[in-house]
């Protein structure tokens, strides 16, 4: 719809999270934060790319990784990206119950992801593959660990949002907060796709 709509008319059709000028500016600000986070992960990917063969005496990617848990984690995160999308869809349709329900589903899927990842990490460390072993392992743990820390932080953040949504309902502030959270969550999904591809799948290419 590239037909120029009259500005006042567009104003009335804006979703609630854009309705307040100051709140809508925060959405732009959050996009800019995501830009810095892309660079954080870009730096971590650079390190991993450089270190991926520096295995020293430790295990190589091929020896270390197994597909089972990684596929589980990928499906959990992709599904949670879908459910947070449905949560925003429900929010736009003013359906509070559905919004909250999909948000809770998202959180549970995210928690499942973190639990599976922590289980993986504990397994690696128990097998002696600590990050002291090699630069490859250091780069692997810091890249995947930073992503996991982001997901964990996201879960805590969304929990505070859940409380605010239940207590206050849809306001320009709460909808803006949920919208920025959804951006954050989709962004983490994208980062995970690259971790899945460049770390795990690439590790299995001989």
């Amino acid at each position: 719809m590239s037909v120029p709509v009259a500005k006042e008319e567009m104003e009335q059709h804006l979703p609630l999270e854009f309705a307040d000028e100051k709140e809508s500016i925060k959405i732009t600000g959050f996009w800019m934060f995501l830009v810095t986070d892309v660079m954080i992960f870009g730096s971590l990917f650079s390190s991993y790319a450089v270190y991926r063969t520096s295995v020293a005496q430790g295990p190589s990617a091929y020896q270390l990784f197994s597909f089972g848990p990684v596929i589980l984690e990928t499906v959990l995160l992709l599904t949670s990206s879908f459910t947070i999308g449905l949560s925003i869809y429900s929010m736009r349709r003013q359906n509070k119950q559905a919004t909250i329900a999909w948000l809770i589903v998202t959180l549970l899927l995210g928690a499942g992801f973190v639990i599976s990842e922590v289980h993986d990490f504990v397994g690696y460390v128990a097998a002696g593959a600590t990050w002291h072993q090699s630069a490859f392992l250091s780069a692997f743990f810091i890249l995947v660990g930073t992503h996991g820390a982001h997901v964990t932080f996201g879960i805590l953040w969304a929990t505070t949002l859940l409380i605010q949504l239940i207590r206050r309902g849809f306001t320009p502030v709460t909808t803006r907060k949920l919208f920025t959270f959804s951006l954050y969550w989709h962004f983490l999904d994208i980062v995970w796709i690259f971790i899945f591809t460049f770390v795990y799948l690439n590790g299995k290419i001989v």
Partner: protein
Amino acid sequence: MPSFVLYLIHTLFPHDVRRPTELGADFLIIMSGVIIVYYLTKQKKWRYLWDEWLTTVDHKKIGIMYLIAAIAMLFRGGVDALMLRTNLALPTTPVISASEYNEVFTTHGTIMIFFMAMPLIFALWNVAVPLMIGARDVAFPRLNAMSFWLFAFGALLLNISFVIGGSPNAGWTAYPPYTGVAFNPGPGENYFFLSLLIAGMGTTMTGINFLVTTLRMRAPGMTLMKMPMFVWTTLTTAALILFAFPPLTVALAMSLFDRLFGSSFFTLTHGGMPMMYVNLFWLFGHPEVYIVVLPAFGVFSEVVATYSRKALFGYSAMVLSVLAIMFLSYGTWVHHFFTMGAGPAVNAFFGLSTMLIAIPTGVKIFNWIFTMWGGRIQLTTAMLYQIAFIPTFVIGGATGILLATVPADYQLHNTYFLVAHFHNVLIGGVLFGLLSGTYYWWPKMFGHKLDERQGKWAFWLYFIGFWVTFGPQYLLGLEGMTRRMYTYPLGFGWHELNVISTVGAFIMGAGFVVMVYNVLYSLKYGERDLTGDPWDGRTLEWALPSPAPEYNFARIPVVTARDAWWDMKQKGQTLANSLSSHDISTLEMPKNTPVPFLLGLSFFVVGFGMTFEWWIIVAIGAIGVVASLLYSAFDYDEHKHINADVIRRTESALGRLQG
């Protein structure tokens, strides 16, 4: 219990920092702290300090706090420089030892870049940018306060290292493996990494804040191509901060993990690669030099137009060249380590990309000159810095091209030629630019001008001192003197040049003393600025009274031309003439909050605890961080209202209300 106290003393004041100089510094710091506390208590100023400054979210006050911090850090970094130069003038009887010399040049570089240049830029941004674009505040006032307190507590963390536990000593670039625990035990490098991580978070937030401010907060009618040049450089610099600071954060965090948690990123064993740190560091480091110089370019673009009483020549070309510099500066970082041996293809690529930057920079230089051409030039202090900047920066840039020539760089790498080059661009470009901006916007900040005669004295001392210091260093570099040596044998022919250079450094020191005297004198005797437009300015900040009221604009102006205020003055429609009582309505403004200060303090506690690996202290600080964040997540009381009557009274007291 006594053993605990002994442990504390041994950790906080290890044997090698219990030297007379450090103990003297300890004593001075404690005494000045006591005097400040006594004064504040006696004058009953604690409440005022807390309400008006520590909890403020007003961009103008935050700007002033940045300015004060930057001048204090300029003093600290300058004293470091004088200590270094004194040692080099007396090679046979060094005043400070080799290890102290390492600490001093490390803190000199770190402080000058991160804790002097950056806050001085943020001071000018905070003071000028919202006023120039016709906004009531920055996009995120609370985030702005958080940025400041993270910066301030980061700076504090680095500065206490000198007296508590030992300073960092691996240079401002902190290359591994020398920063590893094996070679560098003790808390010094921990201080370095943690303070820069904390301050770096604040800087990233400032970048986001000002990027969104310039994109979203402009007054109606101020399209991109009507923005003042300083706002353009703010936009591009903020974007560069977004792209450049994350690699630094990652590099610092990895080094810190190597030290504290036994990872193997930059170690010599276990497959670590120290050069990867260098790669990441300069991914930040090269954009960083443009982060500091672009705002200076912006200041010069404003100053030259105002004092030549002409519109800036070639505005569109200026915008394009700023954008070109932004893009190119991201693709040149390898020229800082050509000698690593990345191969001829890599070196040729990065040598060429470096030389390309000379083109947009040259465009800017010519545009400034053409702006002056045929203008009615007023030789104020700010304008003198501008005029001195042009030849100085051209020479600094030309020596940069020499260094970008790979074969020459193999000879010149890490010599005094390099030292002279980067001081040439950083002092001649950045410091001159920021001081020019400080003199230019001082009336807007404080409501009075700085005394011009003293200002010119300070300028000439800086300018002459600069060339006396760094001219000889080019020659020293060509004669093979390498950087970071605390003494040298006589008989290489280096001594005379070093003595001249040291004399120059002390001339610059005298310039600083005159500048501080200038500030103190002008506080009391400086010419008051009653019009709000002391320089007959061109941009919107001069439409406001000096200093601007809390809400900046009683009514947001509508912009129709590039030099908006100049255009209004030409058409006779100044704000004062057209503001009537019912134009004024109640305004919603951000409300003061203690959270940013407490968040900064909590991060400081975390940083201090991690420096000494005291995990209980870290946990306490972390609880503070989480509590601050939770508090602000549930705090919906962000705004206050300034009543229309209050605004009417303020405006009419300023003589800006009709009827």
